[in-house]
């Protein structure tokens, strides 16, 4: 079900100061997709999620889920969380320690007054779905972190919610388990075809899981788009920088040439992906390290040819991280671990205009 958020703000008052946790957020979360709210801590993503689910009341605006308005300041509508029919997985999982796995998962059905045999059947189905068959009678707190996470997921899914919400559900798992669980979650959600709202500060998680990402900063939505759009084609410098490692170079727009926007910068004259920017305006050129392929010797043909010198190389396992000096700029590049290069080598490389991104300052 589609979620529409209009003009939502949320203020906190602390020590006489007003903090805008959410600042006039407008957002449409499409139905039956995995939608991620991504942002650094304190950007308001969890507050927005808690406003959707009803655990926090916004100070302004309107939120509707499907055709139902669940919160509206003007119309004085406030549907409490228990009446919204949603499912949520908490950061701490919130597994009730005094209940076993079955009771935890059955709870949403029990409070709805579902018949006993229907509950048993539905819980069994859901536990099979999250691959926890046979765990019914275990005390829930005796499970591993990954299993607890799946109990929390089962509990959120069991009553067929309109929307399922996730508040950083993987942040309490160790790195390896986090990766496995992420894949599992992707599979589960892909099979369900349900509207899912996912909050995280981990960009890899966001890129790997989402159909669509909204990047937040200081209580506002900065940019919305598919993972590829956000990674390769961000409009904002903050988004480009936050979503992955990037070389950011100050540039001045010079001209429009052959479908490219041409800029002058510390790397020389560079043709970039087209942007509607006025000549002489300032912009930031963003180049991801994995698109810089330095080599020794004869320079290949093509535009955007750049000469530099390797200033440092650090072996990090799957690659070398190299710093390449080009004039006054220092560019970070990711080089194949078997490259025959050394510190101090003079190198050259070309940049595909499609990988030269101009973002607003």
């Amino acid at each position, binding site marked *: 079900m589609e979620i529409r958020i209009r003009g939502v703000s949320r203020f906190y008052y602390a020590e006489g100061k007003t903090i805008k946790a959410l600042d006039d957020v407008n957002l449409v979360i499409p139905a039956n997709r995995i939608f991620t709210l991504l942002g650094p801590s304190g950007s308001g993503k969890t507050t927005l999620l808690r406003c959707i*689910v*009803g655990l926090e009341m916004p100070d302004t605006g309107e939120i509707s889920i499907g055709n139902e308005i669940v919160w509206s300041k003007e119309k004085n509508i406030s549907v409490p*969380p228990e009446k919204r029919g949603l499912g*949520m997985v908490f950061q701490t*999982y*919130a597994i009730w*320690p*005094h209940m076993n796995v079955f009771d935890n998962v059955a*709870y949403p059905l029990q*409070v709805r007054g579902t018949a006993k045999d229907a509950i048993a059947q539905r819980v069994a189905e859901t536990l099979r779905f999250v691959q926890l068959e046979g765990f019914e009678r275990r005390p829930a707190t005796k499970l591993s972190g990954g299993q607890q996470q799946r109990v929390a997921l089962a509990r959120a899914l069991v009553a067929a919610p309109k929307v399922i919400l996730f508040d950083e559900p993987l942040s309490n798992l160790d790195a390896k388990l986090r990766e496995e669980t992420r894949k599992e979650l992707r599979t589960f959600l892909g099979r369900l075809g349900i509207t899912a709202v996912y909050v995280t500060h981990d960009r890899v998680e966001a890129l790997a899981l989402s159909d669509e990402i909204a990047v937040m900063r200081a209580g506002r939505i900065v940019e919305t788009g598919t993972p590829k759009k956000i990674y390769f084609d961000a409009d904002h410098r903050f988004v480009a920088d936050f979503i992955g490692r990037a070389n950011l170079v100050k540039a001045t727009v010079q001209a429009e040439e052959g479908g490219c926007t041409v800029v002058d910068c510390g790397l020389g004259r560079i043709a970039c992906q087209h942007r509607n920017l006025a000549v002489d305006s300032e912009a930031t050129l963003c180049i991801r390290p994995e698109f810089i392929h330095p080599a020794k010797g004869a320079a290949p043909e093509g535009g955007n040819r750049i000469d530099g010198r390797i200033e440092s190389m650090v072996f990090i396992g799957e690659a070398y991280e190299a710093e390449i000096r080009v004039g006054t700029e220092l560019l970070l590049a990711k080089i194949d671990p078997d490259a025959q290069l050394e510190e101090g080598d003079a190198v050259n490389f070309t940049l595909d205009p499609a990988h030269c991104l101009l973002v607003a300052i």
Partner: protein
Amino acid sequence: MGNARTRLTWILILIVGALTVFPVLMLVLGSFSEGLTAFGHFTVDKYVEAYTDPAFFEVIANTAVFVLGTSLLSTLLALVLAYLNTRTDIPFKGLFRVISIVPMMIPHLLFAVSWALLLNPSNGLINLVLKQTFGLDGAPFNIYSLWGMILVEGLLELPIAYLIIAPAMSSFDVALEESSRVCGAGTWRTLLRVTLPVLRPAILAAFTLGIVRSLASFAVPSMIGMPGRVQVLATHLYTMISTGFATDYGKAAAVGMSVLVASVTLIVVYRALTAESEKFVTVSSRGFRPTVIALGRARLPLFGLVALLSFALIVLPVAVLLYTSFVPYSMVPSARAFSLMSLRHWTTVLEDPISLLALKNSLFLAVVGATLGVALSVFVAYVIVKVKTRAAGILESLSYLSFSFPGIVIGVGFMWFFVQTPLYATIWALLLGYIATYLPYGIRPMSSAFIQIHSHLEESSLVCGASPLVTMRRIIVPLLIPGIVSGWILLASMFIRELTLSVVLSRPGTEVLAVQILRYSEDGLWGRLSALGMVMIMISTMLVVLATLVGNRFKIASE
């Protein structure tokens, strides 16, 4: 939701405020009044009278020596014990846990009685033994003195001081000491320049709390001080309101004011010190196991000392009471004494209507008082932990206020209030007084239970579709049960032995166990006293054992 919480907060502020601030207010008003029947006519006569009394200065001097000596003794003993336990290879370390917990099961009044039975100058058991063995004319020891009071009260305050100092000692980062050694300082210099200064907040906290508790103590001064005519503030107050025909509650209130002010001030100091002590602990707690010092040849003698101390703290008082409850009069244990043993005192006590009434009243107060106290504590703790408004902060300060109230002083305040109401001389007066004075002891376990319940547990129930009421019933209450049970038992075991407040508020018809025991001691009926005392110890011990069992059972569940 927000409105309901605000309303709840203010209702609780009113209730707790009435329970804690009201008696203080009445005490202040009472101290400026002519007498219980002439309430409201402003006068400073009582202050003049109380503070110009020539006996008053002796009382102050005695009190100062008593509280300082007690705190010094208990803190020093605790320091030595904590050091031996955490830093040396002394054997049988389980004994230290026993020392820190078991003495709390023995009511202070009975502990004092047992020492009087051992060391009183006329027929104290130890004195009798020594006189017989060495053919002495007079008794070598007299417990009925300031030094006797300090010894007994010091032993009573030892467990509390130990519980404050030992955790600080065990979380002490040994690297601090080691770096001092590397810098060239010897063992003693390191102890004086590094170890003790780092532990200073904890040591001072234990010392301050010792002063507050001995200042409020009534059991030892009444049982050991009064027979030796050593008056301290608590007994001075008691004398004014209980003896003779001219009981003077105005004068008692005037004296009580200074005790109250001193006590509240010291508690403020204590709370500041514990906050500082916790800060020290967090800085150095890194799961570091302090290196253990080998005691070598001193190992067994030192252990003997600890064993002797635990014997004196735990076994001796109970053994003496039990023995005294069976023999007809004070006599040295001998074949003849054992042949004369009977259940006479037990049957007399259990057939005595006043003792039975006292037992019934105490049980009623323990059960009903603990139930009401815990019910109130649940709501107060909920607001303190989960509602973070300024009003909740006010409630927190209010609810911990009575922690610093000396029972006998606050009893006088309550007296001024109850006398103007139909509650006077009823069991309800005692009930209200108990709950007001011991509320912090109910709130503490409850708020730690609430802290353990992460707000997500509550919120996820709401998201699952459960109403706030269902959430309360199915999630919050089940998770709170361990806290509720241990809070209930703690309050009940304190109420069953309550003395200081009861001694003021209890009237014919509303006798309680501790007051009845005090009466027996005033009449010198040691056998009956011991029998009734054993009943009290048995109920009290049962409750503590129950609390431990229940606590262990639920600890697993809430992990």
